[in-house]
Structure formats: structure tokens, C-alpha cells
């Protein structure tokens, strides 16, 4: 009997200890390398492809605070803000998705699917239409409020009844809320052509309109959200074992859940306010990372952030290539990659439990 116990024990511990350590190191190295490559690609490709020398030239002259001389280097400089925004937004969205999946213990929790983006959109539209708000500094707060309210609403509707929040209940609650809020967005916008024009840039998520000012506004929020998320990680690990066990381990489950939820919603709402609704990043990345490093949130959360940064930066670069000579928004690219991932998750048999 003892040998059986031992083997069960080994199997359970294996992914997080011996095999995990090596695999984790490889994953971390791979992801950091991936971020570097994604940045290079994002700087290099677009309506004008530049050489490595021009990238170096553009970056050094940018670092010295002057405009580069030749056109390739100028193109590189033009691409710096959007690359930075893609990294910030991707990391925040993936982190937000990982947090939401951990709190709800539901594999399809994602800001896009839960309708949080549309809630933010409705708030922004109301701000533009009724209060004449035009600056991103102001509608950031509206987006935040809309996102928080929608998240609470959808989660509550999706977890009515026995069994709590199953994937399908959550997805349907999110889809229905998205449809209702989307209709309201149209209803508010249609009579107002000017508002429609402002909103157009917002409707499909992308990082093309990046500028340093708005990024500076959301940066503190993103940093705060990220810190809170990392602080919550051990508590989330305990939550994964079930509420009773978590209490037994000395975790204040209510506080942990609330903090993590606030962090998750703030992260995705801040990104949505600046970059528009970008779906599926928060869904995909945590699943891939979980496959690579196992379910330990202390590793999951930071690595998801790295993975999200890679994904969104690459999606933006790909969008620039397939939309040549214009560009296709990153949100469209991520939707294309994301839907098959959702299908795969839905097909996996144990989709109820994480």
C-alpha cells in the first residue's frame, strides 16, 4: 500500500517540483527571449520594412532625444509608442484573465467574454455623447466604472443556481450582456454623428493610436494592479483548493478574492480605456502558461504577463503585415487566434474544474 501512496504522491508533486523547475526555467527564458524578439519584429515591420542598422540608429537617436536622420530610423521611432503600449496592454490583459480565471475557478473567464469590454464601451460612449468628454484622461474613469459594474453583474447572473458559475452559464451571461449593452451603445451613438466618429477609433481594439500622455495616465493603475495581483498570488493558490481548505490554511478568502478581482478589473478596464476592447488575450495566455509551468499562481501570474505582452505585440505586428499598406487592428487578429483556443478549451473534458 505504501508504494501506491508514494507513487500517487510523486505523480502529484512531479509537475511542480523536479520536472517543473527545469521546465519553468526554460519557459521563463523562452518568454523573455520572446518579448525581445516581439519588440524587434514590431519595430521592424510595417508599411515600411527597415533593416537592423536602422533599428539601432532609430533607437539610439531616440534615446538621445533627437529625431533620426534617415526615413527608416524615423519609422522605427514612430513605432516605439505602439510597441510599448502593446507590451503594457498585452501584459495587463493576460494578467487580468489569469486573475479572473483563478477567482472564478472557471476556465473561460476573460474580460472580452464576460462583457467587461462592452460595459466599458457603453460608459465611454455615454461620456462622449452626453457629457461631451473627448480626452482619454476623462473617459478612462468612465471605462473603469462601466467595466467594474458589468463584471459584477455578469458574474452574479452567471453564478445563479446550483453548481455556481459553470463555463456555459458565464459565457451566456456575458454574451447576453454584450448584446444588450452593444445595442444600447448603438442607440446612444446613432443620433450623434460626431460621437460616432470619436467612438469609431475605439470600437475595434488596437494599439495604433498609442500616445505617451494616455499611457502615462494608465501606467500607475497598471503598476498598482500588477503589484496587488502578485501579492494575492499565494492566497489564490490556496483558493484553488476550495474555500474551506483555504480558510483552514489561514487565508482570508473574502479579502483575497476582492483584492484580486479589483486588480483584475482595473487592469483590463485601464487597457480598454486606452486601446479599446481587445478580446481573447486574457483567455488564451493563462491556459498556455498553465500548460507550461503548472497551476502555481506565483509563477502563472508573472509569466502570463510576459506571454500576453508577446501575444499582443505579435498580433499588432501581424495586423500591420496582413493589412498592408494600411493596418488591421490587433483586436481582430487576437479574435482570430482566440476563438480556436476557446473551442479547444470547451472540448477538453474536465472543463468545469481548473
Amino acid at each position, binding site marked *: 500500500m505504501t508504494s501506491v501512496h508514494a507513487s500517487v504522491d510523486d505523480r502529484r508533486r512531479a509537475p511542480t517540483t523536479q520536472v517543473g523547475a527545469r521546465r519553468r526555467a526554460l519557459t521563463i527564458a523562452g518568454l523573455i527571449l520572446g518579448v525581445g524578439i516581439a519588440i524587434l519584429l514590431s519595430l521592424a515591420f510595417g508599411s515600411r520594412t527597415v533593416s537592423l542598422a536602422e533599428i539601432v540608429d532609430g533607437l539610439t537617436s531616440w534615446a538621445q532625444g533627437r529625431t533620426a536622420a534617415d526615413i527608416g530610423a524615423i519609422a522605427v521611432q514612430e513605432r516605439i509608442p505602439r510597441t510599448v503600449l502593446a507590451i503594457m496592454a498585452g501584459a495587463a490583459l493576460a494578467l487580468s484573465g489569469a486573475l479572473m480565471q483563478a477567482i472564478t475557478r472557471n476556465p473561460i473567464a476573460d474580460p472580452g467574454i464576460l462583457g467587461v469590454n462592452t460595459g466599458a464601451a457603453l460608459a465611454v460612449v455615454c461620456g462622449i455623447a452626453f457629457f461631451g468628454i473627448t480626452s482619454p484622461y476623462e473617459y478612462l474613469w468612465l471605462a473603469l466604472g462601466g467595466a467594474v459594474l458589468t463584471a459584477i453583474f455578469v458574474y452574479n447572473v452567471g453564478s445563479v*443556481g446550483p453548481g455556481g458559475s459553470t463555463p*456555459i452559464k458565464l459565457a451566456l*451571461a456575458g454574451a447576453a450582456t454584450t448584446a444588450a449593452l452593444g445595442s444600447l451603445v448603438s442607440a446612444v451613438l*446613432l443620433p450623434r454623428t460626431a460621437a460616432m466618429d470619436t467612438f469609431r477609433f475605439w470600437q*475595434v481594439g488596437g494599439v495604433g493610436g498609442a500616445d505617451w500622455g494616455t499611457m502615462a495616465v494608465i501606467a500607475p493603475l497598471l503598476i498598482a494592479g500588477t503589484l496587488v495581483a502578485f501579492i494575492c498570488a499565494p492566497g489564490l493558490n490556496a483558493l484553488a483548493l476550495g474555500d474551506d481548505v483555504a480558510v483552514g490554511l489561514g487565508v482570508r478568502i473574502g479579502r483575497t478574492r476582492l483584492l484580486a478581482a479589483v486588480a483584475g478589473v482595473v487592469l483590463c478596464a485601464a487597457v480598454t480605456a486606452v486601446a479599446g476592447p481587445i478580446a481573447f488575450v486574457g483567455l488564451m495566455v493563462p491556459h498556455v502558461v498553465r500548460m507550461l509551468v503548472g497551476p502555481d499562481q506565483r509563477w502563472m501570474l508573472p509569466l502570463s504577463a510576459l506571454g500576453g505582452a508577446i501575444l499582443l505585440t505579435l498580433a499588432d505586428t501581424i495586423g500591420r503585415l496582413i493589412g498592408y499598406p494600411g493596418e488591421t487592428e490587433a483586436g481582430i487578429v487576437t479574435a*482570430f487566434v482566440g*476563438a480556436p483556443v476557446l*473551442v479547444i478549451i470547451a472540448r477538453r473534458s474536465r472543463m468545469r474544474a481548473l
Partner: protein
Amino acid sequence: MTTLPATPDLAARTALVRAGRIRRSRRRVIVIGCLAVAVLALVAAVIMVGNTIYPVSDVLAVLRGESVPGASFTVGTLRIPRALIGALAGLAFGAAGTTFQTMLRNPLASPDVIGISAGASAAAVLCLVVLHWSGTATMFAALIAGVATAAAIYFAARGGESTGGRLILIGIGIGAMLDAVVSYAIQRAAEWDVAVAMRWLTGSLNGSRWENVLPLGIAVAVLLPLLALLSRQLRALELGDAAATSLGVRVDHVRILLVLAAVALTCFATATTGPIAFVAFLAGPIVSRLVGHGSSLTIPAALMGACLVLTSDLIGQFAFDTRFPVGVITGILGAPYLLFLLIRTSRRGGSS
């Protein structure tokens, strides 16, 4: 031996059952009659009411082909196609929606929730806005895309137990992807046109033209009777494959026919009006309240679909200062009902 009921008792029971059947079928006939009258009245309202209200005599004169100043254009060119397309699209959405809901035994599994409308819409918007194809070619492209979407969702959801919930989840995901295609196509379009965009995002009857009436009309005229003929088999399928087979239904044949007909109706309607939100989803459940259980819902649901589209169009046109496309109204009305249905089924512990 004592378990055999006495003969008079049996006769009484038979009479009771018969009376129940007669009562239910009478109720069904009354509901269908009322809905049909309502559809006709709504069509008449859409034709007559507007910025200028034309009397019946003017409308009849236009229909006879006489030239009435003002009315000939407003009624003949604008309002009659609008009313006809609204009614036809409603019929198509309603019948297709209830067919899917009955066959998959889930009120949430209507073609607009599970992404089939999104497939047709994506194909139609690509063909019209990006490739500049003609209306008829677009119809067929939308049809093929819709069938392909349905097949993709079906195959992705196949295998393993409890496919119902998984099918819906996968449908929502694929729908999200196809909606991204629609956004992409609208952005690519050289001339950004709010009307066109709204049509493909939420569904609208603005821009209904005579040349669109005919293909949609033919599709409804062929496919709606087909669905009505198959409604008996459809009800057998609702009992489960094994029960249906033992009742003499050729399950596979019937299911393929039903799916193709329902998908085709959805696609033709979507290619004409855009994906009018929630009509397919709402018509069946509302009608089943009215008709009661135990009878086919196909025809009443189709009529209810037409009522929903036409009523929402009237609301959208005249209830507010601005004219809203019909899809905005159905979306605002329909989504709360979806949430209500979701909460109710969850409370009972269904839908996992």
C-alpha cells in the same frame, strides 16, 4: 387482473383525452389566426404610417399600378419592400430559431446565439462591402458560409458526452471570431457608411429594395412549408433519437433536412437584413407560452418572428426622435429575456 380498468372508465378517459386534444388544437388555431392577423395588420401599418400617412385608397391605387403623386414613390418604392422584407425575414428567423431550439432541446441554442447568423453576416458583408458582388451572388455566399459555420460548430462540438452545452459554448466562440471579420470588413470598406455598418452589426430594414424581396420570398416560400411538413418528425426528435427511431422517424435524414432548411432560412434572411438580434431566439419561447406544450411551434413561431421584426421596426422608426434600426430595438428587448431565461434555467439546475 384487477389492474385492467373497467370499460366505462376507459371510455370516459378517452373522451377526456379527446376533449383535451380538441381544446389544445383549437387554442393553437386561435393563436395562429391571431398572429396571422397581427402580421397583416403590422404590414399594413408599416406601409401606411410614416412621415406622411397614406390612406388605404392610396395604397391600393399604388398596388394597382396607378401613379399617385408622392405615394407612388414612398409607398411603392420604399415602404412596401420594407414591410415585405421585414415580414419575410421575421418568418425565416422565427421558424429557423424554433427548429434549432427544439432539435437541440435547449432554448438557448438558436442560430443567432450559436454563431450561425454571424457566419452568414460575415460572408455577406465581405462580398458586398469588400468584393462588391451582386445581391444574388451574396445570398449564395452567405448560404454557403452559414452551412459551413454550422458544420464547423457541429464537428467541433462532437464526441464525448453532453454535447449541448459544449455546442453553445463553441458557437459563442466562433461567433465572436466571425464578428471580428465583420468589424474588419467594415473598416476595410472604402466608403465608411453608418447605415451599411449598422446593417451588418445589428440588422436593419433600411435600404430594403424590391430586388431583395424576390430571393428571400422564394426561400421562405420553399423552406417554410418544408419545415412545417417536417414538424411532426421534429417533435419526435425532441424525445431523443432512440424514441424518434422507434416512432418510425429516419433520424439522420430528417435531422440533416431540418438543419439545412433552418440554416438556409437564417442565411437568406441575414444576407438581406443583417443579423437582426434575438428574433430567432425569442420567437419560439414566446410562442410556446401562448400555444402550450404538445403541438408544433414552427408556424406560430414564424408568425411571431414576423410580428417581432415589424413591431420593433415601427418602434425604432417612430417611438424616438431618431430612427433606430430594427436590430437595436430587438437587441435591447431581447437581451433581458435571455438573461431571465438563463437565470430561470440555472435556478432549476438545468443548462450546465
